[in-house]
């Protein structure tokens, strides 16, 4: 994901479990606008797509976000090439 052909602002998004089903996609690569610098601003920007995005990513909904396989917080910064995963609270074990 960090190869030379990747523009510096490209993120890989991964949607899991119920979010994958409601969004109808498992993964996408995207180039967010400059104001998307953190996990929280990415979530707000994705919610603005409307429809299922607006519903599932509404502030009141429990959504977990991981950056490069580590659970992130709203203020976790994003960098070019990051893999950002969005998923519901986990239910394993």
């Amino acid at each position: 994901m960090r190869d030379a052909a990747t523009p510096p602002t490209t993120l890989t998004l991964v949607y899991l479990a119920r979010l994958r089903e409601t969004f109808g996609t498992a993964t996408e690569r995207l180039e967010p606008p400059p104001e998307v610098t953190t996990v929280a601003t990415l979530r707000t920007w994705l919610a603005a797509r409307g429809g299922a995005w607006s519903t599932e990513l509404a502030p009141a909904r429990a959504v977990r976000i991981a950056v490069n396989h580590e659970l992130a917080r709203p203020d976790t910064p994003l960098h070019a090439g990051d893999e950002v995963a969005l998923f519901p609270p986990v239910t394993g074990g």
Partner: protein
Amino acid sequence: MPVRVQTTDFDVSAELAALRGADPRVGAVAAFIGTVRDVNDAASVATMTLEHYPGMTEKALAGIVDEAKSRWDIIDALVIHRVGELKPTDQIVLVGVTGAHRGEAFAACEFIIDYLKTRAPFWKKEVTPDGTRWVEPRASDDDAAARWTAPAEPPR
């Protein structure tokens, strides 16, 4: 510190024997096995599918095991978690912890499964008579995990 995600079943005796090795310092083995129940939230369950997030799962489980090792005086720990389709009475997860003494082994084992339940990226989807549904997280699991944070000493 073995951590594994697999579709196949596991043999508890063989896994715990491998964890113990021939280490004569081990005096206590605490273990937990999670199994599929046929009823969840008042609905009967025919089968379930377990999904995970490859790459993150192994990292999350290894992190939880490392945390347990830093908190308690244990010798080794093991986590095996199955994914894919499972049916009632199937084994889902095995947590095993070895130590010189039982108190630390029990605490670390309970900590690992509590943290796994709230931090490792697994999701269960159940097939019930009313159709397919994603399992909702339990508040009791959050409470169980919260026992281990602040104060620094776990609530034993």
